[in-house]
């Protein structure tokens, strides 16, 4: 592999607001988080210890589908040093089932924190054993006797609705967990106007996730006097966890205190640990000691937060001869796994990006989500939008392929244009800003598009098939949770929010608390940059508390770090709180300095009279006066120097009937280009060159933004090539650890160039857009590149999002099998 360079090669296309003398925003301010992390002094959840804590080990189901006929924990409990156990029966007596988001039949699921009566996936927790040491808990778990009566499992979502398919949830009576039809525009007219109809029988987006290096975990303490739990954990969405856990545990949400500090990656996969957290809470109360839970890698792969696996069947695309896309219809079949944990929200979240980046107006998507005997699906980086955007990109490339058009030209012809922004999509979402064609040009330039043919010939001389592919994608951020009502009109959620507090302490310390739960996104640093800009002080004077504690600022309903939104919601809350604080400082300054507020400015860590810098009140003095020396201040001063702000984006409740409305506030975008070289004798291939161009509006810390783009790229490359959760017919997971589930390592990385443009969002306090998830552009690009490479060898269609070597070989050997998936009808 040759050298990597990361060079922003295009001047930022910035929408200027104001440009004061020195701005922290826009600078690569070194991260505050780094020192403790490079010293090995970070505090991750497994680092948290308590005297007398009991270590919990979960006994997990070896069967994909079975009745539990008996559970006997007596032998385990007899072992010295074993503190106790918990079974599903106990859980059912102490808690109510978790709230279900779905309508019937999914609404009828009875989901408890441990399996009750039945197991529905290999690895499902059945019994919890707590002991003095980790090893002892593990040993004792082998003495727990669980008798099972195996049932036929179902592991292929396409069979879940067959007459003879085993039913996972008797209470639901069906494996269909949710279904809905989305239709906008006039499909009949579009298909009548089309010159060609491109039919694609089947496309498959595979099951994988982001496998954060740190797995889930918790250290839970119970206060017997106040009946309150302190949950040290790395759950990345405490707002959601609290809403799920409180009602189940029959306690008020204030009894659940979530504390996080350093989290070793989340990527969405640490949102649905609430069942295990409930187990820990119940055990902490039952056994009267702190409970420590470490999830091991295999546990995580078997049971936690697999990404949506989605089939797209019977796709039909209406297109003009020149490549203008008019519309499409498709049937999306989503595999939710054994339980709905956050699902079926994936059934609507894709609609944030219904048309992808393209201008077609006539769209129908029939969405069916089914249960199978596999791990429950929960958010994974790019959640539900990535699957849909992959689908739109496959459509673009397949249509181009079949009509013998250049995929670049088809994109340019159909991309939503910069002058159409803000752009309302067929279902009422508003893309705030962007210039996709410009990004594509940057990507083409960086990848050396004009020299591709020569590269192709050079590769051929070395016996390789070269292919180049484009992958474009959107990263929609800041959800309107009202979209959940399109899943279930009864749900009482809408809008979004995030909280922050900023205070000036007695000795002038500026202290910020966030509602978020960062897992490496650098919130402590970017928040400090925003605060320092508003207060005109140094970032070094701003202390942002690490992590999340629901007792600091009483989280808003949606507090957490997920769904590409911190730069909007988190920083919006920080800005709001700091604006309030700045106002209060000026108000106090006005009283002390004897000048009207308009005559004052904040500068160099003081409030002072403009033009008379000696007439200044340092922040330290402000803090001292309000906190400890406040006699003589006016009665109605109303200054506390402790400001709390909840940022609330402007949303309406969507029209549930028409499934219409704005579902996300911002739309970051990425355009990637990949070059692959395939060994035609083996199907093995390398990604030999790669470009990622992004646009997330105003960049508060460019280095942090680039880091997110690179990380998303690397994960997408892994998913595109090798990462899959593969099940056999009996429901056994064949990739339960890093030995078989191959993630990219250092030698796997292609050379990378990056570029960017900045299209500020008109809708956000700072012009920023949430970013971080990325949208899986690497998967789209690699699929496109492989299909391009195979053009000269039978023109196979890439129909699956994961293309390990064996699949490429199959496409080389039998291109006709994939070609059978596509048909072009002339009108």
């Amino acid at each position: 592999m040759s050298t990597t360079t990361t060079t922003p090669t295009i001047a930022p296309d910035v929408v200027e607001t104001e440009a004061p003398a020195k701005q922290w925003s826009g600078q690569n301010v070194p991260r505050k988080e780094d020192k403790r992390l490079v010293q090995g002094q970070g505090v991750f959840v497994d680092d948290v210890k308590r005297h007398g804590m009991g270590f919990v080990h979960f006994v997990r189901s070896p069967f994909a589908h079975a009745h539990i006929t008996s559970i006997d924990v007596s032998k385990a409990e007899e072992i010295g040093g074993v503190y106790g156990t918990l079974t599903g029966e106990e859980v059912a007596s102490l808690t109510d089932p978790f709230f279900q988001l779905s309508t019937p039949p999914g609404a009828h699921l009875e989901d408890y924190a441990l399996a009750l009566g039945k197991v529905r996936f290999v690895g499902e927790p059945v019994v919890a054993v707590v002991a003095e040491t980790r090893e002892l808990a593990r040993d004792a778990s082998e003495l727990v006797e669980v008798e099972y009566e195996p049932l036929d499992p179902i592991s292929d979502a396409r069979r879940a609705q067959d007459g003879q398919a085993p039913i996972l949830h008797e209470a639901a009576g069906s494996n269909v967990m949710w279904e809905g039809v989305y239709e906008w525009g006039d499909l009949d007219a579009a298909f009548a106007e089309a010159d060609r109809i491109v039919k694609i029988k089947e496309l498959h987006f595979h099951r994988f996730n982001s496998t954060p290096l740190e797995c889930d975990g918790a250290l839970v303490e119970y206060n017997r006097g106040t009946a309150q739990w302190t949950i040290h954990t790395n759950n990345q969405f405490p707002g959601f966890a609290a809403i799920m856990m409180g009602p189940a545990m029959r306690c008020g949400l204030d009894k659940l205190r979530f504390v996080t500090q350093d989290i070793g990656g989340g990527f969405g996969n640490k949102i649905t640990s609430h069942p295990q957290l409930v187990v820990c809470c119940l055990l902490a109360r039952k056994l009267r000691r702190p409970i420590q839970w470490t999830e091991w890698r295999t546990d995580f792969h078997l049971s936690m937060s697999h990404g949506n696996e989605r089939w797209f069947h019977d796709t039909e695309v209406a297109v003009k001869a020149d490549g203008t896309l008019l519309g499409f219809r498709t049937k999306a079949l989503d595999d939710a796994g054994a339980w709905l944990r956050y699902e079926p929200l994936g059934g609507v979240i894709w609609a944030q990006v219904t048309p992808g980046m393209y201008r077609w107006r006539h769209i129908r998507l029939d969405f069916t989500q089914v249960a199978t005997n596999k791990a429950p699906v929960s958010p994974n980086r790019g959640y539900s939008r990535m699957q849909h955007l992959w689908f739109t990109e496959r459509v673009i490339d397949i249509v181009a392929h079949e009509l013998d058009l250049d995929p670049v030209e088809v994109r340019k012809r159909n991309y939503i244009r910069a002058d159409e922004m803000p752009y309302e999509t067929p279902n009422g979402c508003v893309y705030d800003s962007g210039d996709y064609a410009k990004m594509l040009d940057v990507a083409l330039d960086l990848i050396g598009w004009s020299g591709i043919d020569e590269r192709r010939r050079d590769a051929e001389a070395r016996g390789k098939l070269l292919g180049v592919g484009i992958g474009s994608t959107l990263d929609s951020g800041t959800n309107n949770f009202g979209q959940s009502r399109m899943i279930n009109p009864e749900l009482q959620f809408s809008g979004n929010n995030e909280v922050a507090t900023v205070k000036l302490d007695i000795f002038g310390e500026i202290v910020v608390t966030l509602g978020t739960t960062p897992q490496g996104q650098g919130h402590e640093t970017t928040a400090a940059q925003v605060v320092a800009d508003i207060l005109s002080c140094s970032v070094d004077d701003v202390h942002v508390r690490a992590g999340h504690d629901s007792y600091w600022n009483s989280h808003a309903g949606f507090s957490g770090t997920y769904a590409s939104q911190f730069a909007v919601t988190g920083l919006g809350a920080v800005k709001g709180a700091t604006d309030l604080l700045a106002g209060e400082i000026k108000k106090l300054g006005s009283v002390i300095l004897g000048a009207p507020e308009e005559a004052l400015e904040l500068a160099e860590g003081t409030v002072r009279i403009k033009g008379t810098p000696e007439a200044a009140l340092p922040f330290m003095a402000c803090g001292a006066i309000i906190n400890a020396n406040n006699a003589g201040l006016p009665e109605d001063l109303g200054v506390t120097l402790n400001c709390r702000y909840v940022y609330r984006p402007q949303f309406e409740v969507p029209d549930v009937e028409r499934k219409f409305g704005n579902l996300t506030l911002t739309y970051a975008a990425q355009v990637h280009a990949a070059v692959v070289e395939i060994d035609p004798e083996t199907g093995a291939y390398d990604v030999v060159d790669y470009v990622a161009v992004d646009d997330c509006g105003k960049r508060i810390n460019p280095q942090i933004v680039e880091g997110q783009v690179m990380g998303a790229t690397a994960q997408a490359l892994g998913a595109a090539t090798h990462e899959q959760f593969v099940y056999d017919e009996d429901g056994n997971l064949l990739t339960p650890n890093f030995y078989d589930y191959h993630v990219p390592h250092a030698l796997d990385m292609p050379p990378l160039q990056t570029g960017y443009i900045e299209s500020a969002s008109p809708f956000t306090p700072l012009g920023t857009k949430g970013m971080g998830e990325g949208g899986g552009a690497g998967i789209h690009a690699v699929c496109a590149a492989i299909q391009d490479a195979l053009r000269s060898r039978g023109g196979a269609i890439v129909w699956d999002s994961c293309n390990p070597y064996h699949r490429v070989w199959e496409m080389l050997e039998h291109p006709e099998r994939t070609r059978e998936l596509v048909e072009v009808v002339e009108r």
Partner: protein
Amino acid sequence: MEPTAATVSPARQITVTINGTTYEREVEARKLLIHFIRDDLDLTGSHIGCDTGNCGACSVIVDGTLLKSCMLLAVQADGASIETVEGIADDDELTKLQQSFSDRHALQCGYCTPGMLMSATALLRANPQPTEEEIRKALQGNICRCTGYWNIFEAVKDAADGAGA
């Protein structure tokens, strides 16, 4: 009877020096070195990211050799001198390598970072001016899910020009 080297016993007394401090502890033979370091000695800088020896988050230097401490038993470290991330720097100051990681944004969540630093430290001791290919090869046993590795390569290159590895 005290277990000698040549008797089979389920536990034994071990003496281990870590970052210059010597510890004497009784440990079960089955205890992994990484658990001994983290749980018994409260040196939580070394991390666990997998259960098959693939991820490298547990990497430490044992008697000058870079190893994954999840595939060693604590009893095997009897008499050994071990370096972990907590001992990379002499005091609270950062080494050039640690500073380079921060400057180049070669860490995001920080979970793989201690292992990366140990592997990079071992590399730079043996090879003070590595090529990028050599850096990749040296870090092949350390998985990162956040950064994509590119910034990590740059950070190691930066550190290679100076002392303090």
